[in-house]
């Protein structure tokens, strides 16, 4: 059924299943290791005191301003969701997005694909679905691993909060992955898609973490997709659900612009 109606999606999933599997396994192991360290970290009570004595500006710079390691949820949130998990998912979805159209054109397989009765828009939409599904699978692995680790390491993370936090991350992955897909489709270059999207992600991340530190960047956090993914420690306090709408809108706009440019241009062979 899927193959028949969504051939590009189906083939993409087949191509990527191996890397998806390893990536999921990697993130699960990483989460497990971090979780396993919690019982000993918690014992070292002095650590939180040290953290609280650090100037706020230093914490901001480290992206750790709301890093509260007095609770398991705060610890996991700071250790994982502040930096590593977003990086993991971005590598996954930027890679998937950039490969889907830009990569196919660079490899020379897009010509053959588009000589078949399938429109450029459908190719792009099915690729977008592939990126979204990869992000969702990643998010599911995160939620599942946390669900298993929470009782074992006594993390005391509410299930609904872990779902919310993972959802924010998944939406971040989709928004940025779709941007990579759009750049690849608009330019026909996988490397350009990787470079442009990677730098945009890095710059907005930096601006976001500097916004609490530098006065004139005070409002910069609003343009950072990372802000909408995990502002205010969703793992501890719950996800601000409307933030997902901002990320969704970002992704949809990027995709729309990409589709328009892709539809108009000459393909290289």
């Amino acid at each position, binding site marked *: 059924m899927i193959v028949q109606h969504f*051939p590009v999606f189906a083939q993409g999933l087949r191509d990527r299943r191996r890397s998806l599997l390893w990536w999921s396994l990697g993130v699960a192991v990483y989460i497990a290791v971090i979780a396993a360290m919690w019982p000993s970290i918690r014992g070292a009570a002095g650590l939180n005191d040290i953290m609280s004595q650090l100037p706020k500006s230093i914490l901001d710079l480290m992206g750790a301003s709301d890093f509260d390691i007095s609770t398991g949820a705060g610890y996991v949130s700071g250790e994982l969701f502040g930096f590593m998990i977003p990086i993991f998912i971005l590598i996954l979805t930027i890679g998937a997005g950039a490969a889907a159209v830009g990569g196919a054109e660079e490899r020379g397989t897009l010509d*053959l694909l588009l*000589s078949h*009765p399938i429109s450029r828009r459908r190719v792009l939409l099915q690729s977008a679905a592939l990126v979204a599904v990869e992000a969702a699978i990643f998010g599911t692995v995160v939620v599942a691993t946390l669900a298993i680790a929470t009782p074992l390491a006594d993390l005391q993370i509410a299930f609904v909060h872990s779902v919310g936090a993972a959802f924010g991350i998944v939406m971040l992955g989709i928004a940025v992955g779709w941007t990579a897909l759009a750049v690849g489709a608009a330019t026909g270059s996988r490397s350009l898609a990787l470079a442009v999207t990677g730098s945009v992600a890095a710059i907005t991340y930096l601006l976001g973490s500097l916004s609490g530190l530098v006065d004139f960047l005070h409002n910069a956090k609003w343009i950072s997709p990372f802000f909408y993914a995990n502002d205010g420690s969703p793992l501890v306090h719950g996800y601000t659900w409307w933030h997902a709408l901002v990320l969704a809108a970002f992704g949809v706009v990027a995709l729309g612009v990409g589709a328009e440019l892709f539809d108009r241009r*000459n*393909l290289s062979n």
Partner: protein
Amino acid sequence: MGAPAIRTQGLTLAYRHGRGIEDVDLEVPTGEVFGFLGPNGAGKTTTIRVLLDLLRPTSGSASVLGLDSRNDSLQIRERTGYLPGDLSLPPSLTGTQVLDWLASLRPNTPPIRRDELVQRFAVQLDRPMKQLSKGNRQKIGLVQAFQHAPELVILDEPTSGLDPLVQDEFHRMVREHVRDGGTVFLSSHSLDEVQHTADRVGIIREGRLVMVETVDDLRGRGLRRVTLTVAPGAGDSVEPQLRALAGIDGVDRRGDVFEFAVVGDYAVVLAGLGKLPVIDMLSRAADLDEVFLAMYRGSAK
């Protein structure tokens, strides 16, 4: 329906690297094998890719199977098979997987001819593309272009990498396809290759279609190659007379042996040769590569 399989009118595409095309008017009726000839970079691939809506013309229009190449591209692609000039196939997929994948992109036209073609070309289906030679990958490319029995097949340099036996089989397949009412449009840089297959050829050069003719006409255009041997030592005196003779071209001399092309009336030329101390004469049909070169020299002047 009566519409030609392919028709372009004033088709122009200003394109990078000078691979554009200019004002190409082309008409290929259904049921014909049309050979599209030109050196690399002349605009063959560009023209083909416009027909499939992979490139958009700057001006002019193209219709394929009576449908507009821009607005009705999906219908055109439904009814067409295509072999790209620079065929890339996913390296990790096996032949079966590649053919299944491409067939899945054509849910309305099942690959009814696949088994027959696979057998015919002895295609290796169980090995991933990266382990296959270029020729074996090209065979997969041919199978996918024909497997759904399309009305029109567009092939860009189809025989590159194929060994001679497979090329023969390919030529048979092309002839069968038109016998059954289909149309084949194939590009090549070698006239020799298409003269056994094509009904007509069009020659494109620097983006312009310089000539369209039937293969028979092209061969029959008084184009004979003659090797003439004159009496020993007579070469020096014969040369100026030969060069002055009307109806011959491209005189080439090695001692007492001359080679030239007869481009005018053969009888007149023979009469002129009769006055020379000829001891041997060999005449044969020029193959199209020579015609091609002559044409090229002609239009370059």
